[in-house]
């Protein structure tokens, strides 16, 4: 066919319209998109190369799983068959047609417990078969019922491009005050970890007592800081969906299961981490779809007896984000986590798009139905300071987030806080850290740094630290065996009794073990709220978690709300 397109006649190629030029310059076109390649596992959740569901049980042992006989099991199959799937219901559950299970998931008159009684026996391929039938709205409907805890919550990152512990403390204090239930940090220079983890903990307890904190490091150091009581929980315990990638990560389901018991033995809350796209990104998806492999991860976590999982693609979000239906698959993986009765820290974590509209649409499937933790890393620092490679949401989005909560009457775990209150907790966190550093004979925190922390936005707003001196100090914290209890004592004797008391309350949780139960967080009265005493009881309209009363009144407030009686006045 002869082209009928107009030609510019110039060597620069065909002439484009002003419209096309405008669209070409839109941020969304900076994002990467790629065709599916199912043979290599570059496909979200619908692949001809995924196995068909099957199960066979003999003498109480699963001898066939998704078309594979036991003799051919890889270690994931073995672990899932022997630990994750409840054999007593397996054959009955897998015999239920997938569309029937999918309908039970969206039908509010079918209780969560009734669904769990089936899902605890399903194979990976069967779970995939069920969620494949569901569109994104159905996935959200199911999430609303199936998430473990009734009241949703949120988690933030507090990090610093300069690993500045004062910045981390001040931003943790602000984040805690704004409503995050959990705060996470990590490092640019790993040796800074003890100082930054101390800053995070003190900042959190200065902002709102009971917020729990973690420092993402390699497994052994992370456990060490936890055992000392410098951090309160752990999350970056990665698991993978294929044996080869698991081994590349220098772990197995048995090493990770042992680690889960190790954390629990010290009274420390822990969850695993996994996500769609990690296997294909690490180059060995064994020709399976991203969601099929992720479902194997979720089952592995279940089998290990860990209370929860951080999933929702997390650091691999660029992979599902680039393929058709990828963000639907990410929502589906959160749902499967819910269907297996695990706490879900639901992603909305690493940044994946230049488009504000795409960033928002990506978080709707978790924010609207609610998740145990809607984000597993809203950046409570500017993304330029985010050492987890940036988040889908950062401090620039605080007011937008609060407004969306108010517009849709949805609880995303945050609230607007007046500037004076924020300045007060930032200042107090920085002063408390100043006192702790002085008592521990660590490099001095100056009054100028405290002043900077009070009013700063990013790490660029702080005086530079003597990094080498700080690193020596960090090492001495480890060498001297400084513990959380030491920090409590220092805070108490230096005039920060309130922060000391909050910190001690968090440490006391390790004695009770209450935070080891599914989806446990601490409320402002230090009462553990888990999927036991705050179990999700959604059963249709008018039931489950409802944003009403005092909490709704709180979320009606924004930075600028005009008084109805006096339009000249703001009431925030």
């Amino acid at each position, binding site marked *: 066919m002869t082209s009928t397109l107009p030609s510019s006649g110039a060597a620069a190629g065909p002439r484009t319209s002003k419209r096309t030029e405008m669209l070409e310059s839109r941020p969304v076109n900076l994002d990467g998109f790629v065709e599916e390649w199912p043979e290599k596992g570059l496909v979200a959740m619908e692949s001809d190369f995924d196995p068909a569901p099957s199960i066979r049980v003999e003498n109480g042992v699963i001898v066939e799983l998704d078309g594979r006989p036991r003799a051919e099991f890889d270690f994931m199959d073995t672990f899932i068959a022997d630990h994750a799937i409840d054999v007593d219901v397996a054959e009955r559950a897998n015999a239920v047609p997938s569309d029937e299970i999918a309908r039970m998931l969206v039908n509010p008159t079918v209780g969560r417990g009734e669904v769990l009684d089936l899902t605890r026996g399903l194979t990976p391929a069967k779970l995939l078969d069920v969620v494949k039938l569901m569109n994104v709205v159905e996935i959200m409907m199911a999430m609303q019922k199936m998430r473990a805890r009734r009241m949703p919550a949120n988690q933030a990152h507090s990090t610093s491009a300069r690993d500045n512990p004062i910045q981390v403390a001040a931003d943790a204090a602000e984040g805690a005050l704004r409503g995050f239930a959990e705060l996470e940090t990590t490092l640019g220079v790993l040796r800074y970890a003890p100082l930054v983890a101390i800053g995070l903990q003190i900042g959190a307890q200065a902002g709102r007592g009971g917020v729990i904190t973690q420092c993402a490091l390699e497994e052994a150091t992370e456990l060490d800081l936890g055992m000392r009581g410098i951090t309160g929980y752990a999350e970056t315990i990665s698991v993978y969906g294929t044996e080869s990638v698991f081994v590349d990560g220098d772990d197995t389901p048995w090493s990770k299961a042992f680690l889960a018991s*190790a954390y629990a033995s010290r009274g420390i809350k822990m969850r695993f981490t996994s996500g769609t796209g990690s296997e294909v990104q690490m180059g060995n998806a064994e020709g399976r779809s991203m969601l099929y492999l992720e479902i194997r991860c979720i089952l592995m976590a279940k089998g290990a007896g860990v209370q929860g999982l951080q999933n929702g693609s997390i650091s691999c979000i660029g992979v599902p984000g680039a393929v058709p239906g990828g963000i639907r698959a990410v929502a589906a993986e959160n749902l499967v986590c819910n269907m297996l009765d695990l706490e879900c820290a639901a992603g909305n974590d690493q940044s994946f798009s230049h488009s504000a509209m795409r960033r928002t649409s990506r978080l709707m499937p978790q924010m609207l139905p609610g998740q145990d933790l809607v984000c597993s890393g809203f950046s409570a620092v500017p993304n330029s300071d985010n050492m987890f490679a940036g988040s889908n949401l950062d401090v620039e989005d605080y007011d937008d987030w609060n407004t969306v909560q108010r517009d849709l009457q949805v609880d995303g775990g945050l609230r607007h806080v007046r500037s004076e209150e924020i300045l007060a907790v930032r200042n107090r966190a920085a002063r408390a850290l100043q006192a702790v550093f002085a008592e521990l004979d660590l490099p001095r925190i100056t009054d100028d740094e405290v002043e900077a922390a009070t009013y700063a936005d990013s790490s660029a707003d702080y005086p530079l630290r003597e990094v080498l001196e700080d690193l020596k100090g960090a090492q001495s914290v480890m060498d001297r065996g400084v513990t959380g209890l030491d920090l409590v004592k220092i805070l108490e004797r230096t005039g920060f009794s309130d922060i000391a008391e909050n910190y*001690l309350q968090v440490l006391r949780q390790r004695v*009770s073990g209450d935070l080891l*139960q599914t989806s446990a967080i601490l409320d402002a009265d230090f009462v*553990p709220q888990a999927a036991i005493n705050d179990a999700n009881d959604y059963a249709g309209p008018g039931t489950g978690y409802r944003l009403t009363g005092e909490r709704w009144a709180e979320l009606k407030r924004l930075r600028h709300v005009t008084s109805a009686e006096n339009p000249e006045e703001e009431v925030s």
Partner: protein
Amino acid sequence: MTTTLGPADYPLSVRRPDLLRTPTGTPLSDVTMAAVVAGDITNEDLRVSPETLQMQGEISDAVGRRQLAENMRRAAELTAVPDEEVLAIYNALRPRASSRQRLTEIAERLESVHAAPLCAALVRESAEVYEARDLLAPEGE
């Protein structure tokens, strides 16, 4: 314990503080700021006891979380194992880190020294699977 705990007992720190003691035997109610300042509380006190983990496991079981309960019971066993040894066992369980003999020794030690049969079973099971999947280190390493 004569009765089995259930969801009504959770959170233990609020509903059943009478049952909670630190590993050194201090009642949780005695873990106060005054006691901390007086130096009566050590970091060792701020740990979970095996009895408490067993109780949490009962609650997990009662709400239908079998695997979580099993983890609580393995954890109860590990409370007796020193930090360094816990980390060493974890490292030994990494792929191709240990020979079959080494894993067997770890399992035996868990059983005989630490009275940790559930953890020992997990280690033994890993040895079986690692052998089948060629994930053992050669003997002598």
